[in-house]
């Protein structure tokens, strides 16, 4: 007789509910700690930090007491741009602001903050993003904050604001709601966020200019100059640089004079290229493999619904399931723009289909999503993984550039 038949199944003594509840509670706490970033430093680190802080504070107080005159806080440079008839260009450190005719703005600028307040008109901006600088444009009740980019802002002086981003990304805030506008997209107070390709080309009104010495307004048909569609932030050849506070730059001058009347003549230096902006543009240009090319959000959602049936089919897991899961990630990224969900789906793809046919494409999609907004450590890690997993892949060189980006 077999031993198993003799022993049978030994009866398991159940755990009481209270003990199980305690275990469950402990687990939830432990799991949340696992997923949270380390919040507490060790005692040794805290002690070291405390000593360092005390020494620093003592040194700071001593230095302060021995300073005869503390340096004054940085005074912001403020000036106005008031261009009625032609383009103006202002260069602020590594940012270039080009104004279209009939534009009025006030600029307040320090080394760590630039605030441009528009009264009306159109600005083309090319801004090298710096983490230590806050760069914001205010148009009525709308705030547009640069996140490293080339973009244009049009404000009609009442309520309508139009933002079009050609490279990089900006954050638009209005009525406490904030939206990220990425390259190739436009945002307006009327239409919200749309792709630039979907925006009709505006037909600007002729600009009326009061010519010097003339009582009658002169109508100049420079509509194409003012139109934003398809424009890049090319800097006009002539501009003004900042004069020290409280210098006021007024570019309301006769048409015959090509140079600005006030302010210093600027050199014709090209706008410094942002290597990150270039890199992000290159990332966007890199095609997505196995792209289902679905544009409409409704279509994408429907397709995801169908793909989920394939992707979550029970084992054995076939190539259809692998392809379906990858395609879901692509659709979530584009056109739905649900990047967090897309990353999550890619994560699941890697767990379930480690050697799947779309593996390389999935690795690149991860790079594209993570690096599309910001070249940070997560982005570089993803690029590094791609470059090592797919050394001969179509985006291998780009991945190396991303990995090496400082």
């Amino acid at each position, binding site marked *: *007789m077999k*031993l*198993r*038949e*003799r*022993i*049978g*199944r*030994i009866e*398991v*003594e*159940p*755990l009481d509910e209270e*003990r*199980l509840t*305690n*275990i*469950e509670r*402990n*687990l*939830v706490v*432990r*799991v*949340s700690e*696992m*997923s*949270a970033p380390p919040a507490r430093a060790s005692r040794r680190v805290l002690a070291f930090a405390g000593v360092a802080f005390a020494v620093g504070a003592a040194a700071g107080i001593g230095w302060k007491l021995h300073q005869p005159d503390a340096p004054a806080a940085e005074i912001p440079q403020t000036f106005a741009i008031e261009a009625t008839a032609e383009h103006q260009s202002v260069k602020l450190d590594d940012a270039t602001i080009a104004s279209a005719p009939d534009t009025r703005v006030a600029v307040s600028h320090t080394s760590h903050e630039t605030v441009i307040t528009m009264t009306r008109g159109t600005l083309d901006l090319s801004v090298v993003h710096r983490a230590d600088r806050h760069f914001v444009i205010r148009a009525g009740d709308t705030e547009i904050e640069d996140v490293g980019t080339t973009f244009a802002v049009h404000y009609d002086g009442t309520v309508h604001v139009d933002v079009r981003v050609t490279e990089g990304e900006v954050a638009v805030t209005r009525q406490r709601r904030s939206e990220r506008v990425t390259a190739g997209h436009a945002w307006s107070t009327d239409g919200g966020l749309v792709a630039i390709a979907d925006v009709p080309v505006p037909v600007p009104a002729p600009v009326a200019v009061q010519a010097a010495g003339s009582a009658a307004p002169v109508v100049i048909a420079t509509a194409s100059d003012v139109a934003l569609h398809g424009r890049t932030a090319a800097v006009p050849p002539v501009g003004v640089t900042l004069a020290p506070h409280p210098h006021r730059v007024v570019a309301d001058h006769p048409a015959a004079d090509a140079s600005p009347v006030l302010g210093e003549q600027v050199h014709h230096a090209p706008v410094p290229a942002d290597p990150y902006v270039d890199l992000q543009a290159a990332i966007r240009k890199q095609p997505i493999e196995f792209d289902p090319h679905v544009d409409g959000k409704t279509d994408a959602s429907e397709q995801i619904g169908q793909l989920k049936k394939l992707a*979550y*089919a*029970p*084992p054995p*897991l076939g190539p259809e399931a692998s392809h379906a899961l990858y395609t879901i990630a692509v659709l979530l990224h584009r056109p739905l723009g649900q990047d967090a969900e897309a990353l*999550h789906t890619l*994560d*699941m793809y890697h*767990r*379930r289909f*480690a050697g799947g046919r779309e593996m390389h494409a999935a690795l690149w999609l991860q790079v594209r999503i993570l690096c599309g907004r910001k070249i940070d450590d997560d982005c570089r890690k993803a690029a590094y993984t791609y470059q090592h997993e797919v050394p001969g892949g179509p985006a291998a060189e780009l991945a190396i550039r991303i990995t090496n980006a400082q």
Partner: protein
Amino acid sequence: MTVATAYVEDVLLVDRCLTGEPAATRELFRRHRNRVHACLFRVLGGNRDMDDLLQEAFIQVFQSLRGWRAEASLATWIDRVSVRVAYRYLSQRGRRVQTDELVDEDSPGGEGPGASRQMARDGVKRLYAVLDELGAASRLAFTLHEIDGRPLAEVAGLVGSSVTATKLRVWRARKRLEAAAAADPILREFLQEAA
């Protein structure tokens, strides 16, 4: 619930757990706590560290959840993690495991259902006392196959060894138990009663 539905639910549940959702953590624990507890209980016997072991098994599950590739069912994968926890416990504690005193204080002496229950408890206690003398790998192989009723191939997969090696370990443990039963009338009676 069909196998397919259960599988999809597992995938979705794991997915939610990986986002750190507390409700999903609770749900996964509630779904699998009984099987993990039963597995640990049959391998280790009634044990005063059982609460800690159950908790440890689930901590290991949640820590390695990202590694579940959905190739095996979630339950099988959790079993594997539980067996690993039991193995570590057996290895760290040496062969002697703190098996609970299985004494039924209310049991009357002599004949009747109380007496036979007490006898069964004594039998189980002596069975695990013999198992305490075995090595961790032999004990796991024997308990998973003979007590938990799993096929040899599955046991081999759970402990990560070949079927032949598993069969040999089970055979050795069985011989050891039979030798102990020959010298211990209570154990012998328990084994015969259980039949």
